[in-house]
C-alpha cells in the first residue's frame, strides 16, 4: 500500500543548504517556544492565587491547547517538507504518526510497565517484596468480598444489560414508535455516573416510618405494607444489586442500539421461510435470530464485561464502597489514596490488567488477519 510520492516538481530544485534549513526551522522553533511559554503561563495561572476571571483563563487555555496542536503539526510538517526529498519521504510519516505514538507510549505503555514493576515492591516502592502484594490481594478476606462483588457486577450487569437490550430491540423493531422508544431508552447514556448516582439515590431515598416517603421505591414498598428500607446500605449482599440496576439502566441503550442494527441485518427471506414452515415467533427468535446475531452478542457482552470489571464511579458515589459494596476499582483507589499503599494498589491494577488480556489477545489476532497490512 505504498503511495509513491511525486517528484519534487513543486519544490525549487536547489541543493541542501545549511542556512536554508536553519531558516525553515524557525517557524517550528517559534511555535515550540510559544507552546512552552503558554504551558507555564496556563499552569501558573491555575495554580497560583490571582484575580484573573475564570472565563479568561478558560478561554486562553482552550485557545492555547487546541491552537497548539494545530500549530505544532503545521510547523513540523513545514520543516520536514523543506528538507531534501529523500528526507521528507523518510521523516514525514513520523510527523503524522509520531505524536499519537508518543502520547500512547507516555500515557499507557510506560505507565503499565511501571505499575507492573511497582506491584512487586512495598508500599513506598522502595523494597522488593516479590509476590507478597498478590498474595495479599488473593487471600485477604476483604479482597475476597471485593472479587465477589465484581463477579456479581460482571455476571448480572452484563447478562441483564444484554438481555434487556435484546428484548427492547426486538420489541421496537415491531413497533411504529421505534424511533421515540429507542431515543428514550438510549438517553441515560448521556448522563454521567455521578448524575445517575444522584438520580438513583433519590429513588432509594429513605425517610423515617412516620414521615411520608420521598423515594419512589420506598413509597411503593410502604404502600404495599412494608417498612422503609435503606436499600443500598443494610441489605447485604442484595444492596449490590441496587447498584447494578443503575448500570443496567445506563447501558441498556448501548446494547439495544447495536442489537437493533444487527436484527435489521437478518435476511427477511430467512424469517419468512421459517414462518411458512410453521415456526412460531419464539422459535424464530431462538433458532434463527439469535444464531444470526451471535457475533454482535459476543461483541456487546465483551464490551460490557470489560466495562463492569472497571466499574468505579457508581459505587464511589452511591456508597463509597462501604456496606460490603467495594469493587476492584474502588479498592484500588482506597489502597492508593487512603492507605498510601503503592504496592497493593498497583497489584490490584495489575489484576484488572490481567483480566482483560484475553480480549487484548483476541483483538490482536483479529488484527493480524486483516488484509490492509
Amino acid at each position, binding site marked *: 500500500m505504498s503511495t509513491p510520492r511525486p517528484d519534487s516538481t513543486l519544490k525549487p530544485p536547489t541543493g541542501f543548504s545549511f542556512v536554508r534549513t536553519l531558516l525553515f526551522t524557525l517557524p517550528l522553533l517559534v511555535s515550540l517556544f510559544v507552546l512552552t511559554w503558554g504551558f507555564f503561563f496556563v499552569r501558573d495561572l491555575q495554580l497560583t492565587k490571582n484575580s484573573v476571571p475564570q472565563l479568561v483563563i478558560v478561554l486562553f*487555555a482552550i485557545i492555547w491547547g487546541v491552537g497548539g496542536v494545530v500549530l505544532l503539526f503545521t510547523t513540523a510538517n513545514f520543516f520536514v517538507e523543506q528538507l531534501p526529498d529523500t528526507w521528507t519521504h523518510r521523516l514525514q510519516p513520523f510527523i503524522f504518526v509520531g505524536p499519537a505514538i508518543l502520547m500512547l507510549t507516555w500515557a499507557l505503555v510506560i505507565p503499565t510497565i511501571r505499575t507492573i514493576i511497582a506491584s512487586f515492591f512495598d508500599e513506598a516502592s522502595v523494597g522488593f517484596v516479590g509476590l507478597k502484594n498478590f498474595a495479599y490481594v488473593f487471600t485477604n478476606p476483604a479482597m475476597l468480598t471485593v472479587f465477589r462483588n465484581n463477579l456479581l457486577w460482571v455476571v448480572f450487569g452484563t447478562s441483564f444489560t444484554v438481555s434487556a437490550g435484546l428484548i427492547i430491540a426486538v420489541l421496537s423493531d415491531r413497533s411504529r414508535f421505534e424511533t421515540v422508544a429507542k431515543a428514550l431508552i438510549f438517553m441515560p447514556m448521556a448522563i454521567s455516573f455521578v448524575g445517575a448516582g444522584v438520580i438513583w439515590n433519590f429513588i432509594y431515598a429513605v425517610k423515617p416510618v412516620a414521615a411520608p416517603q420521598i423515594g419512589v421505591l420506598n413509597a411503593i414498598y410502604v404502600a404495599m405494607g412494608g417498612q422503609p428500607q435503606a436499600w443500598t446500605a443494610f441489605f447485604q449482599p442484595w444492596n449490590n444489586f441496587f447498584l447494578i440496576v443503575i448500570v443496567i439502566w445506563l447501558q441498556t441503550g448501548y446494547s439495544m442500539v447495536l442489537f437493533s442494527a444487527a436484527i435489521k441485518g437478518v435476511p427477511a427471506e430467512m424469517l419468512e421461510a421459517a414462518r411458512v414452515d410453521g415456526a412460531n415467533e419464539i422459535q424464530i427468535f431462538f433458532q434463527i435470530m439469535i444464531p444470526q446475531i451471535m457475533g454482535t452478542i459476543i461483541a456487546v457482552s465483551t464490551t460490557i464485561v470489560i466495562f463492569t470489571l472497571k466499574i468505579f464511579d457508581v459505587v*464511589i458515589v452511591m456508597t463509597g464502597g462501604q456496606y460490603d459494596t467495594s469493587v476492584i476499582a474502588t479498592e484500588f483507589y482506597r489502597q492508593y489514596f487512603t492507605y498510601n499503599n503503592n504496592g497493593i494498589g498497583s497489584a490490584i*491494577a495489575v489484576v484488572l490488567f490481567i483480566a482483560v488480556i484475553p480480549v487484548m489477545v483476541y483483538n490482536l489476532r483479529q488484527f493480524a488477519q486483516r488484509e490492509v497490512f
Partner: protein
Amino acid sequence: MKSKISSSLIVNGALALICLLWTIPTIGLLISSFRDRIDVNTSGWWTIFPHKDWVSVEKITPAADVDRNVDMTFHGVTATFEQFIQGVEKDGQRFIWIGNRRIGYLEVQQYIWTSNASFTLENYKQVLASGDYTAKLKDGTTETKTGDNMSRAFLNSVAVAVPATVIPIALAAFAAYGFAWMKFPGRKMLFALVVGLLVIPLQIALIPILRDYVALHVNGTFLAVWLAHTGFGLPLATYLMFNYISELPRDILEAAFVDGASHFTIFTQLIVPLSVPALASFAIFQFLWVWNDYLVALIFIGASPTNQLVTQRLAEIVGSRGQDWHLLTSGAFITMLLPLAVFFALQRYFVRGLMAGSVKG
C-alpha cells in the same frame, strides 16, 4: 387479522411500559429540581400530579384559656389533645392538631383532589451562585445562602472537555492517515500497539502519570486532564479513524498525488473534509466521555476548589449534603444539561460512533 392487532397491542404496550420505567428516574429528578426545599423533603415528587389527599380548609386557633390537658371541643368535635394530634375524623372532615400543646393550632381538613404543583428556580440559583448571595424565601423574607458555584465548575468542564476532545482527534486523524496512506518501517507493529491498547484499563496508568504530573507541577491543572484523556482516548480514536480513512476510495488520493499535492495538503484539503462523519461521531463520543468522567478528574484535579469539574462538584455535594435533595437534583440536572443537548442534537452520529467501536477500554 385479529391476532395481528392484539399482538401489535402487546408489543406497543410492553414497549410503552419499558419506556415509562426508563424515563421515570430522570423525570423525578427534573421535577424535584424545580420544587421548594421543604416540599422536596416532605412529599414525593409525584404528588405534583392531581391526587386525593387531606387538604386544610380551615384553621382554628384555640383561645389561650382553653385547657389543653382535658377534652376540648371544636365545631362539635370533642377529643383529647392526644387524639387531635393523631387526627379525629367526622362527617368527611379531619381535625388535626398542628404544632405543640401550648402554641399549636387545629386544622380542619377535607379529603379532596389536590396537587402540590408549586415550582421555583431558587434551587438552581443556589447551586449556580458563587459565594454568598441573598435569597428571597417563599414567605417573603430574605436569607443569606452560600452558593455551590456550579457555574464555575461548568466553565471548567467546558475548558477540559473541548481540548480533551479536539486534541486526541487531531492526533488520531493524522496518525490514521499515516497508517493508511504512508509507508514506513514499523508500520504494522505500531498499529498493533494501537489495537493492543484498545481495552487496557486506565487504572493501570493512573499512578505513574500522577507521579509525572507531580514532578512537572501540573497536577490540578486543565492540562493534566487534557493529556490524560488524550492518552486514554487515542487508541479508540486512532482505530476508528483508521478504519474510516483506509476505506476512502484510492483513486481520489492518487489523482491528487498526480497533481503534485503533498501529503499534508491532501490530508487537510481532502481527507479531513471527507472524514467529517467519522470525526463527528468520535468527537461526540469523546466529549460525552470526558464531560461525564469522574475518576480522571478526581485524581488529576483533586480537591483544588477553583479548577473542579461539574462531576466533582456534584459528588462533593452528595458527600457533604446528601439529604439536600433540592440542591442535589438541580445540581445533577446542570451536569446533564450539555450532554443531553449534544445527545439529542447529534444522536445519529453518536449511534454511528458506538457501532464502529464496540471495544473501548
